[in-house]
């Protein structure tokens, strides 16, 4: 089974870390990931840019609305995610609008650029899909 593990934290506190604190935390996190990565079981790992870099595409009456900032509603929950390479935010917005158009629910798509820490590929992908 493939799992997504999502990290939630207090943004302002995390971004107030000094370089040393940041390095120390990353070092500890790396040590935890290492065995999994060596076993070929870890997929791409990244950190999302600050929420100030986020854009949200929300289903509108006729066309989807494009809003600045992260997704802020509390009733909906995170149901899935895509990672993709786009040349511009416009491209990412266009793709999200297409998703929104064919999705019957009141879906929203939060577009968050992220830094890739590791491009790991999961080698045991076959068993993961079953």
């Amino acid at each position, binding site marked *: 089974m493939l799992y997504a593990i999502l990290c939630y934290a*207090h943004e*302002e*506190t995390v*971004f*107030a*870390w000094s370089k040393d*604190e940041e390095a*120390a*935390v990353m070092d500890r996190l790396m040590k935890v990931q290492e065995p999994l990565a060596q076993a070929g079981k870890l997929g791409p790992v990244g950190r999302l*840019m*600050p*929420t*100030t*870099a986020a*854009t949200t595409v929300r289903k509108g009456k006729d066309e989807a609305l*494009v*809003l*600045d*900032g992260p997704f802020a509603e509390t009733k909906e929950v995170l149901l899935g995610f895509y990672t993709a390479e786009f040349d*511009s*935010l*416009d491209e990412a*917005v266009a793709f999200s609008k297409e998703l929104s158009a064919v999705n019957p629910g009141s879906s929203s798509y939060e577009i968050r*650029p992220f*830094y890739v820490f590791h491009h790991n590929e999961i080698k045991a992908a076959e068993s993961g899909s079953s």
Partner: protein
Amino acid sequence: MTDLAYIDLALTAARPQALGALLRYFRDLDTAEEAFQEACLRAIRTWPDKGPPRDPAAWLIFVGRNSGVDQIRKRAKNEPLPEEAAFSDLSDAEEDIADRLDNAHYRDDILRLLFICCHPDLPNTQQIALALRIVSGLTVQQIARAFLVSDSAMEQRITRAKGRVAKAGVAFETPDVHERAERLKTVAAMIYLVFNEGYSAGITNPDSVAFCDEAIRLSRLLLRIFPAEPEIMGLTALMLLQHSRAAARLDEAGQIVLLENQDRGLWNRRLIDEALAMLDKAIRHRLPGPYQVQAAISALHARAGRPDDTDWGEITLLYELLEKLAPSPVVTLNRAVALSKLKGAEAALCLIEPLSDKLDGYFYYHGVRGGLLMQAGRNAEARSAFDRAITLANSPAECAHIRLQLDRLGASRG
């Protein structure tokens, strides 16, 4: 990270929101600061045992408000403080504190807190010091070290600035749309001042580099509460881009390295990527402003893998746009530099000659002019421009940079 270090970070992060709300309650900066201080002390006492609250800012506002009210009562009636037990139900109450506090006020609270530091009577350095002390919560010692003054001198400076602010009075009503936009503009300019102080003083004094980080933090904070303001996105992007070159700006001897000579491998890709994402968002609004245009110019440098890849045509166009949006001789000077890359030094010199009156006391004007004259082979004129620049240099690094140019001139003559 120890518990206390984590609490310290959480308190710093919650400070603008909590202090801003307390200022609204008490309408007096000193009372608000005391109340916040008291709330922080209680946090340090209780959080290690009970764990940090889910919403630290709401907790601090709640506790700070109670302690502030007690202080006021105590002063009024000279009655003893209530026992610690009066606060003992805090952890139970915490769940609904967030609901009871009026969330709608938060963004105006933070904006007001930033805005009072921008009082027009205050000179720039005092605005910077006040914002760093009040909003960012830096210590007087930290600020004094960055400004290279004694602690007591800085303490005095901040006290005087606070006095002025208190006397001036602040509007506590919720601002209307127009007033809010004005405040936002003023605050953005102040944040950029903080950044520039760190950026220019950082050449010789590493203690002031922290100002750059602080300015970026304030700008992100502003963007979180006003997420759809393209100029605040532009400002954030601009500062991130300038800050991304921090490691490449100076060589090992502390000499300035010009943009075109910098090792681009030392540029901080993470900051650049965030800035480019931010600029993309801003441009979608189709409301260009000076910060966005400056960020766009800076982004073109960031996007060029080598100096030769720089899109000088686009940069020249952006400077033309900037001249229209925010006309200034300094902008024209920068456009001339871009133009020299496209059309040569003589074309650029034609553009800057008319600026000589306005920019005669400006280091960069004479530095740039000297460089252009040197390129054009007018060495004697170049030498006198550089001589003038040296007398106007703001730092030993700037001075050394011009000396280097003079040396090159000397070599070319021989």
